[in-house]
């Protein structure tokens, strides 16, 4: 199966969902999207609210899919016959917020994934706000199974591996990564694709928010590790590609890591990591 994905590398407005949803609407009405029904348009981490919203998050977080952000994204998807992956702060019980990616289509909400790895080091302050997910982000979609992960999740190879084990042919990673981390991501993106024989689509924020510069550089790799597209560094950019699940099938014969990895290792890892 072949399907079209658009990498929408934007600079989100801080704590400003109105401007961000307008921006998302504008991008989804581009001719490349409208002329090709069912394109999946991927926006970065927290693209609905901006990454650095600080304590404004307590007002901005919304239940998902019940909230107005989701409603608006479904409307945009419906108007443009596309699918949208976007990031937003999701409120659950009072006081609980998740850093969430959602997938919506013309027919409505399709699913969500919450960020697992919550960074609280260097310039990151996410544990002040976010709770860690308790589930792997895997969604059944009209395109087959898709894995969703968020930014720092890619530093944990187990997340993409789980996507592959759970049957995803493509893992989508939405991100808000400042420049100092670029070389890590650029090493992890092809690695995660190749070690799991899975297509990997990475979409980052680009440009300055407060005192951070997000490095952009969004890219897609197929399951053999081949770079399909690479967007500009540090500034907003846009790219549309076609991904093929056939490459995933072929790669799994050539590099059968999922067959060869011994299950006992995971139970051992779990036991050992609990005692650290």
């Amino acid at each position: 199966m072949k399907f079209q994905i658009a990498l929408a590398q934007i600079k989100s407005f801080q704590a400003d969902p109105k401007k961000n949803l307008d921006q998302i609407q504008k991008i989804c009405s581009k001719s490349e999207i409208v002329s090709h029904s069912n394109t999946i348009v991927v926006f970065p981490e927290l693209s609905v609210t901006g990454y650095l919203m600080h304590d404004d998050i307590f007002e901005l977080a919304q239940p998902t899919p019940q909230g107005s952000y989701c409603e608006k994204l479904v409307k945009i998807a419906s108007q443009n016959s596309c699918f949208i992956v976007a990031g937003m702060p999701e409120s659950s019980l009072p006081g609980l917020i998740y850093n969430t990616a959602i997938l919506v289509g013309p027919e409505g909400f399709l699913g969500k994934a919450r960020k697992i790895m919550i960074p609280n080091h260097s310039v990151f302050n996410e544990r002040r706000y976010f709770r860690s997910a308790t589930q792997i982000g895997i969604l059944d979609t009209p395109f087959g199974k898709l894995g969703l992960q968020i930014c720092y999740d890619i530093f944990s190879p187990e997340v993409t591996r789980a996507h592959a084990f759970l049957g995803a042919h493509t893992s989508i990673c939405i991100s808000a990564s400042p420049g100092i981390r670029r070389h890590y991501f650029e090493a992890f993106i092809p690695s995660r694709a190749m070690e799991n024989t899975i297509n990997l689509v990475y979409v980052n924020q680009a440009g300055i928010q407060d005192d951070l510069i997000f490095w952009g550089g969004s890219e897609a790799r197929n399951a053999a590790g081949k770079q399909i597209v690479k967007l500009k560094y540090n500034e907003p950019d846009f790219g549309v590609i076609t991904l093929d699940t056939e490459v995933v099938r072929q790669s799994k014969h050539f590099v059968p890591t999922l067959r060869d990895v011994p299950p006992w290792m995971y139970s051992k890892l779990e036991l050992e990591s609990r005692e650290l």
Partner: protein
Amino acid sequence: MKTIPPIDVEQITKLIEEFIRIRVKESGLNGVVIGVSGGIDSAVVTTLAVRALGPERVFALFLPSGTTPSEDLADVTNLCKILGINLKVIDIQNIIHSVSTEIKEKEDSNRLEWMNLKPRIRQTIWYFYANKMNCLICGGGNKSELMIGYYTKYGDGAVDLLPIGDIYKTHVYQLAKYLKIPKKILMKAPSAGLSENQTDETEIGMSYDLLDAILFGLEHFQTESDIANLLEISIERVKEVKSMLYSSEHKRRGPILLKLGVRTPNIDWRIPLVEPSEF
């Protein structure tokens, strides 16, 4: 002596230009005011600001005192001419005399309080013109100076933006060469010009090369002994820098206040730098 690894000047230049452009745009103001000194830091910052905003939105102020080397005026004038920007020169020596008269204290340019008075007078004049012209103030502070507190609190440290605040002095030279800063400025011994024949490196007690190498090690979580071994220096040199680092922390923070409320300014009342629109 080992030196710190070079930076990608082309990339860093682009990022700083974008930073200046965005901060000015989001402030809704017209441009930037920069206190130029004839030294390399303010020359680099002024050049970056002109590249970011264009010459018509960058205003240079040169505010010499009695201890300012006479060659600095010619260097500043030449730089501003090359960049095509407006330069205003105001001698602050009479203001210093007036302060001395009014507060009935004898002026002594070798004493800390008189040295610090100069950048604080300059700061007052920068803000006067920044307000008058609806501008932000760009400071010339670099990472080496900031990390050891080699600047005047609420003097040259009182600015809105520090475009090279995360750039070590060693790297400022690299940037200066890339930006084609006039050789005369590039070759000049760094000096705050607050007292006669003052130079930074004499006052700090070590070269910028060594200071930066030690700071770089500390920044990258190296231990004191690792840094000393790597740089083939005594551990006391590293301790000297650490001591400057800790004793100047009060300068890098805003005014220190006691947390009493639920959310407290400068501590944990955190909001974005820009005001969002209504949703």
